[in-house]
């Protein structure tokens, strides 16, 4: 058994039992971050803050939400929006945060791709991040079912129908997922459980893995430079703070994190109070009606690009490509065969074009996913979907031809 002495302070008492001093060093003061980074490196903290906002607002909403098909719509739109003090505020915070979290995720992802932050031992950071993206998507989808409005019902119908596998006609699987022939009580109940329990647990576990995967390879930097963290941190601790290439996570980098968070929150609360419509679709303020299909059924904006990869093709090919789009990002560290870890613009023309085309094309897919699939829009959507697939197939080839810079 360890030897305990009379504590000299509360901190010492805790230190003897929990090693808080060591913990503080490992997690905060001697967690070394390269200095050569920009504000995009603060997106992780922005995501943590947004996730906290989602959890806290979700807890408040959970106190009044009723997960039954008869009461769900009214518990949200009457009880929470009208009766409960500040219920409307928590709902708007929750709805807007659920949308904005995806904007930040996409910025975070494209930052990773641009600076090659999935290479040289950082593969697991990328993979755990993409698993987070997938669980966040499931979390968003299941949450969207809960107000039981028209779009909840019909999006639920359309998305669960995908599991019939086109010509496979696996209708039994669809019924098994829904627990019924159509989205009804069993469906709402299980999506409620997924949204408030199983998926949040999975997300929290994956966030732990994501942080853990970051620990050994350290955060990447703007030039993909390999830093000798032992040497540089020693320099810092010996007093040469300005000369060292690294800084402490806390308070050094955290102060910048908080600055970015502050600016982000101005943007966020502006949306919550003055421009929330984009995150709370009007169609979903009509109660679910299985006998009345809305004129336009579309997912939330962050799913539109993958929806548009499904839509232009016949059902079987569409489903195959849709599945391809869901998993292909996970494989990025293995599809990129280049020896270079640096900004996309400096890796040679081919990858630079690949990166910016991928970004622009996903925005095109996003726009076409929402617009009705008619005339020029379906042609643009078809071309964009083909470009997306071709780009991924070409990635191993163009990156293996890349010269070392």
């Amino acid at each position, binding site marked *: 058994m360890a030897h305990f002495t009379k504590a000299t302070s509360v901190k010492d008492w805790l230190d003897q039992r929990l090693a808080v001093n060591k913990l503080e060093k490992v997690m905060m003061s001697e967690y070394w971050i390269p200095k050569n980074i920009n504000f995009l490196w603060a997106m992780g903290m922005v995501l943590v803050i947004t996730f906290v906002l989602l959890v806290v607002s979700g807890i408040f909403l959970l106190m009044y939400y009723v997960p039954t098909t008869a009461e769900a719509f009214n518990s949200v739109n009457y009880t929470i929006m009208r009766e409960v003090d500040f219920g409307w505020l928590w709902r708007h915070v929750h709805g807007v945060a659920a949308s904005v979290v995806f*904007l930040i995720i996409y910025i975070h992802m494209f930052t990773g791709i641009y600076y090659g932050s999935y290479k040289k031992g950082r593969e697991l950071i990328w993979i755990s991040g993409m698993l987070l993206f997938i669980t966040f998507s499931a979390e968003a989808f299941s949450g969207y079912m809960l107000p039981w409005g028209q779009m909840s019902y019909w999006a639920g119908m359309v998305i669960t129908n995908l599991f019939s596998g086109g010509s496979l006609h696996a209708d039994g699987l669809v019924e098994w997922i829904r627990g019924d022939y159509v989205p009804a009580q069993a469906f709402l109940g299980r999506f409620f459980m997924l949204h408030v329990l199983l998926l949040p647990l999975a997300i929290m576990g994956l966030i732990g893995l994501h942080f853990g995967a970051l620990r050994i390879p350290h955060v990447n930097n703007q030039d993909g430079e390999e830093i000798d963290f032992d040497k540089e941190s020693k320099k810092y601790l010996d007093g040469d703070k300005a000369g060292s290439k690294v800084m402490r996570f806390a308070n050094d980098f955290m102060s910048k994190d908080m600055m970015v968070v502050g600016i982000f929150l101005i943007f966020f609360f502006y949306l919550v*109070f003055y421009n929330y419509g984009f995150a709370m679709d009007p169609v979903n*303020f009509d109660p679910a009606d299985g006998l009345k299909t809305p004129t336009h059924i579309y997912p939330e904006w962050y799913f539109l690009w993958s929806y548009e990869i499904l839509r232009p093709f016949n059902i079987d090919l569409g489903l195959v490509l849709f599945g391809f789009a869901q998993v292909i990002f996970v494989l990025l560290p293995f599809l990129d065969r280049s020896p270079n870890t640096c900004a996309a613009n400096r890796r040679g023309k081919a990858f630079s074009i690949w990166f910016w085309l991928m970004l622009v094309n996903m*925005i095109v897919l*996003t726009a076409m996913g*929402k617009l009705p699939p008619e005339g020029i829009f379906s042609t643009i959507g078809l071309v964009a979907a083909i470009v997306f697939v071709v780009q991924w197939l070409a990635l191993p080839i163009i990156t293996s031809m890349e010269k070392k810079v």
Partner: protein
Amino acid sequence: MKNKEPLILAVVIFFTLVTYYLVEPYAHHVMHKHVESEHFAYADLPAITKTGNAENGKELVTNAGCTGCHSIDVAGMPAPMDAVMAAQSYGVNPPDLSNVGVILDAKFLADLIKNPAHALNVEHKFDVSKGQMHPMVPFYGMGGDIDQEIADMVAYLQSIAISPDEVTPAMAFENACGRCHAVGYEKWTQIGTKPAFKHEKDGLAFDIKVMEYQDSLKAYMGKLPPDLSMYIRSRNEHFISTLVENPQNHLAGTAMPRVGVTAESMDKIIEHMENAGDTKRHEREAIGKNVMIYIVIFAIFALLWKKQVWRDLH
């Protein structure tokens, strides 16, 4: 090294705004038909050319048989039957005429009296040549100049109505929309506000009356007109007001009639719908301002802290 952060921020903002523009304003512009407001001018209806005399109008309204179906509470004339039975007879409960003179447009009232299906814009549903009579019997005149007689009747209806300032949002809504549309969140049913009953069976009896009324309404309209509790969020102000102004502009062939409200009444109807579906809008604005002030101060402190911490790092 040159500070690239402003450039990076500009790139992030640019792509974010382009995406926002495409999926929100642009996509909605493509998906939804835009209907311009006609400013409640009812330009297709003939102008009233005669000056009405309210005294004559009172006599005409009594003698023309209006009160055979309509109540005029302010003049002490009760409804001949209750709402449920009236709906069984006519499809929908004929409105009380006490305040139609202030809530509805005068030109509309005049045309309505003379040619109901025309004013209501439901001639596609009620075609006299096919024997489809509108349940409201047109006024064929009492032997004099029919336009003068109608002007007198309109003058009478205006003379008994309350002043425009006294029209409440609920009153405007109930008169113009409330006999077809329920607003559950305001306890409004097609036969009136549901009272708080002491005994459950009285509440159930009331619900049964509402259902009976709704059955007649369904048969008359083709389907039950929707509950409007959340319409201010599921539609929007522009959609609702242009729909009420002329339903055919949005939904050609719809059974929903033009109800002929004035522009002022429309504003009140919108206000009533906001009172049902967006009750916390004032609180939202007030709190929004305070939160923004707080968060800007937070951001300034965060910026100052960062500057202080980073002074030694360069």
